[in-house]
Structure formats: structure tokens, C-alpha cells
């Protein structure tokens, strides 16, 4: 939007020294938030004495202009292109997968083979070299290590879970299948997080785990040795889900126990 109107000096001065009427002050303040030119002119007026009303007003205004627009969790989780790619890729995969699965004939194995890979890939990408906006500097801060990784994983989970299950239910996949990928996905992602505490490269572990999972789930159907849906229903069955839950909890517990090495590991 192009700014055409500017406040005159008298009005600006009245605002700056606190003598402007409340309504005028409020509307001028709204204008100053948008108008560089009037801010610059206000700044060049006679310097206000410290502690005066106008200093307080000027500080409050500067606060509102400069205050970063997003919340801390979003800034931790989505600051860099690497992090945004991780988040977007997992959301897109979970958005398109159920639709793709319902259009294609081999719908269930494809969905069950690929949906759990989304959280796993997202966690692996947050460990990437370029994921951290502040680079090595971030390692010397109290939040370094597992806290930052966990915040980023939580952000992916919070948005990916409703999208993945919601779209799956919407296109008419069975409820057991729409929810069945969650625990295997959590188990695989937790194993990648655990790899982050060792000397193994999380991206390599993620690629290996993801491929093994995808092949194991889709191969019996692809080779026509078993009916297409048997493996999917097996994954959605109570014993398999319980196993996934145990794996996820164990991996998370071990990751927390080994959290020290998250911050130290990547710097040697």
C-alpha cells in the first residue's frame, strides 16, 4: 500500500510530548506503525527527556514494530528453509498419500508403507547441517541439544497427525488404517532421534529404516504372495501396534537418557 498522507509537525509534536487528545494519539499511533516517513520525522523532533511519557510511548511503538511476528516455537521449528522443507514435505506427503492410495487399486499397502515414513523423514531433516539458523553458536545455549530437537519434532507431530489421519478418514480408509500408521510412525521417528545420540548419521539411519519399512509392508502384496490387505491389517492389529508403542517408548526413554550426546555429538 502506498502511503500518501503524512501527519504535520504540530500533531507529531503533540503526540510525542503526550499532549495530544486520546483519540488523536491512538489514530496517529496506528499511522506511525505503518509510516516510515512520519516515524523518521517524529524521531528528529526535539529529543524527549528520559522517563517522560513520550519515551515510554516511543519504546512501546518501537516494541510493536520490531517485535518478531511469529511465536518462539514457530521460530525454533520453521526458521530455516531446511526446517520448513522438513515440515512441508511431511505435511504434503500425508495430504496426498491417502488420496493417492484411494485412487490407486493397491490402496492400503501403499498408505501403510509410506505414511510412517513422513515423521521419520521430518525428524531426520531437523538434524541436518543447515537446519540450525545460528549454527555452532546455538550449541552453547541452554536450549541446545534434545530440547531444540524435541520442540521441532513436536511441531511436526502437532501438524502432521491431524492432517494424516483426517485426510485418510475423509477419503474413506478404514479407521484402523487411518490411525494404524501413527504408532509405527512414532516408533520409526523415535529410532531416528535415538540415532541422533550416537555416532550414526540420522539421515542414513532414516533412509535405511524408511526403505526397510516400505519394502517390508508393500513387498508381500507386490509379489502377489499374499492378498494386498493382509500386511496392512497385520500392522493395524493390536499386537503390532503394541510392539510399535513399546519400541517408540523405549527409543524415547533411551534418547532422553542419552540426551547429553545430542549437543556434544555433532561438534567433534
Amino acid at each position, binding site marked *: 500500500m502506498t502511503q500518501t498522507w503524512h501527519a504535520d509537525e504540530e500533531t507529531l509534536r503533540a503526540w510525542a510530548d503526550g499532549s495530544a487528545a486520546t483519540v488523536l494519539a491512538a489514530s496517529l499511533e496506528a499511522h506511525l506503525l505503518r509510516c516510515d516517513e512520519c516515524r523518521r520525522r517524529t524521531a528528529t523532533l526535539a529529543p524527549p527527556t528520559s522517563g517522560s511519557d513520550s519515551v515510554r510511548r516511543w*519504546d512501546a511503538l*518501537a*516494541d510493536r514494530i*520490531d*517485535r*518478531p511476528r511469529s511465536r*518462539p516455537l514457530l*521460530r*525454533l521449528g520453521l*526458521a*530455516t*528453509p531446511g526446517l520448513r522443507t522438513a515440515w512441508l514435505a511431511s505435511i504434503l506427503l500425508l495430504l496426498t498419500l491417502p488420496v493417492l492410495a484411494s485412487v490407486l487399486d493397491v490402496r492400503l499397502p501403499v498408505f501403510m508403507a509410506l505414511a510412517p515414513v513422513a515423521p521419520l523423514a521430518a525428524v531426520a531433516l531437523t538434524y541436518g547441517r*543447515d537446519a*540450525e*539458523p*545460528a*549454527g*555452532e*553458536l*546455538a*550449541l*552453547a*545455549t*541452554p*536450549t*541446545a541439544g534434545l530440547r*531444540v530437537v524435541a520442540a521441532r519434532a513436536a511441531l511436526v507431530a502437532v501438524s502432521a497427525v491431524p492432517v494424516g489421519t483426517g485426510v485418510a478418514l475423509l477419503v474413506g480408509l478404514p479407521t484402523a488404517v487411518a490411525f494404524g500408521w501413527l504408532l509405527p510412525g512414532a516408533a520409526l521417528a523415535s529410532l531416528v532421534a535415538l540415532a541422533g545420540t550416537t555416532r550414526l548419521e540420522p539421515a542414513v539411519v532414516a533412509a535405511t529404516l524408511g526403505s526397510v519399512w516400505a519394502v517390508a509392508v508393500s513387498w508381500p502384496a507386490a509379489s502377489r504372495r499374499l492378498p494386498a490387505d493382509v500386511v496392512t491389517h497385520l500392522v493395524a492389529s493390536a499386537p503390532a501396534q503394541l510392539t510399535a508403542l513399546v519400541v517408540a517408548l523405549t527409543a524415547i526413554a533411551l534418547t532422553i537418557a542419552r*540426551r*547429553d550426546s545430542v*549437543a*556434544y555429538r555433532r*561438534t*567433534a
Partner: protein
Amino acid sequence: MTTETTHTSTDTLLGAAGITKAFGPHTAVDHVDLALGPGIVGVLGPNGAGKTTLLRILATVLAPDRGALSLLGLDPAHPKARTEVRRRLGYLPQSPRLYGGFTPLEMVDYVAILKEQTDAGRRRREAVAVLEAVGLGDAMHKRIRTLSGGMQQRVALASALVGAPDLLVLDEPATGLDPEQRIALRSVLAETSHRGCVVLSTHNTAEVAALCQQVLVMDRGRICWSGTPTELAAEADGRVWESDVEEPTALRSWLTGPGTRRHLGTLPEGAAPAVPTVDDGYLLVTRLTR
């Protein structure tokens, strides 16, 4: 020549006993002992002497293989104590590699989030203050990738300074700064040194002379000398002279101007000793320990 400075245990902000770090067969830091109080400490040494590894250990981003460390009275080997140290720590890595899509204000604010500052208004005010202190007041809304190398270095420095840390670990903070900015850096660091400890590494002996109350000279992983800049210069007292010819008996000779040479070593008969500088002392110390 001493390897330790005397401070009472109450004002030791940074203590180390026998810290060692090896990368494979290469020992980067070899049994280093330190006892540092408030003030600015300069770490000098040739490339590969282990300065960066020592600073990364002091900044808690690298764990030593052996030895005990005490930072601000806490042992960073314990996770809780390490987090506590990091709350009061500012660190400038050798190559900061900051994300270019942020503005300086966003970057400093982001680092303040990592340093657990939850009040957005206070974060902003502090970020603006440190950016102004490093001379980036006019550039705080530009993208970092559009800034010059020296300005990017100062964004990283401002990120290290945010949160008023009691312990500042700076790996070559003056790299990429012009003389005027170096002078500004001095006053910023002097402020922190009143209440806390600043450890900085540098190649620049003139900077050490101007800035530091104490100097550590590192060579091949060890601290081979420590003392004040004046003491370091005094090491070369009566062992430095100038002439316009080569001196085969000198430990070290170099050109200082057209046709003028400066020499280090045993003064030949009849030669007049020159006034020693920190540079002379440093060159002599590193040469003698080899």
C-alpha cells in the same frame, strides 16, 4: 615464565586442570591448566596450536577427553550444571555460519529465545541494544545474506553478547573488522570484563596489547607461556635489535621496512637493543619452546 596465574579461589571464574582433547592420533589440547578471574584474556598461538579446540571446550560445545573444568564455579561435565553455565555464557565460533534469511534483529532475537528469554518486549530491547553496541543499528532490518563479511561477523558477536553473559568465549572476534570497528569492539568487551571473564583468541598481538589484561600463548596444544602483555614484551628485553644487514646468528629475522631488519636472539657486540614489543615477546616465546 609461568603457566598459572595467581587468583584466590573465590574470584576464579574459569578453572581447568589437565584438560586434554585428542582427535584420533592428534592431540589438539594437551594437559591445559587455567585459573582465570574477571578481565579479558587473550589466547595467542600459531595456526593449529589448539586455540579453537580449547575455546570450544570452554564454551561447552566440546567435551574434553580428560581433565576437570570449572566454569563460573560449575562443572560442565554434569548436564544440569552445563545448562546453568550456558545460561550465563556467550560464544562466538570461529566460523559462525548464520542463516542469511534472518535480519540481524531476528537472529539476535532467535539466539535470545535459545537463551531462554521469554519476554518478547525485553528480548527486542536487548537485541536492539547489543546490535547498536556493535555498530549495526542501521542494518538491523536488512537480510544477513546482503551484509558484508565484517557485518555478518558483528551479527554473530551481537548474538554472543545478548543476555549479558558473565563468561564470553570469542574465537577471533576481530576477524573482518576495520580499525574503527576494532576500537568499538574493545569498549564492548571492556564492559563485560568488569563483571565477568572474556576469553578471546587472536592472531593479532597489537590487539592483545591494547585489550587484554592477561595473555596465554599456546603452541602444539599446550600453554607455553602466560602473563601480562607487558611481561610478554619484556621477554624480549635486550634480545631484539635492528640493522640493515642479515644476521646469521639471530634466532629470527624479518624485514620491518625498506632495507631495515629486526632480529631476535643474543645481542651481538656493539648492537644497540631495540624497545621490545608484544610481537617480539610472542615470537621469542614460541621459538624458544620449539
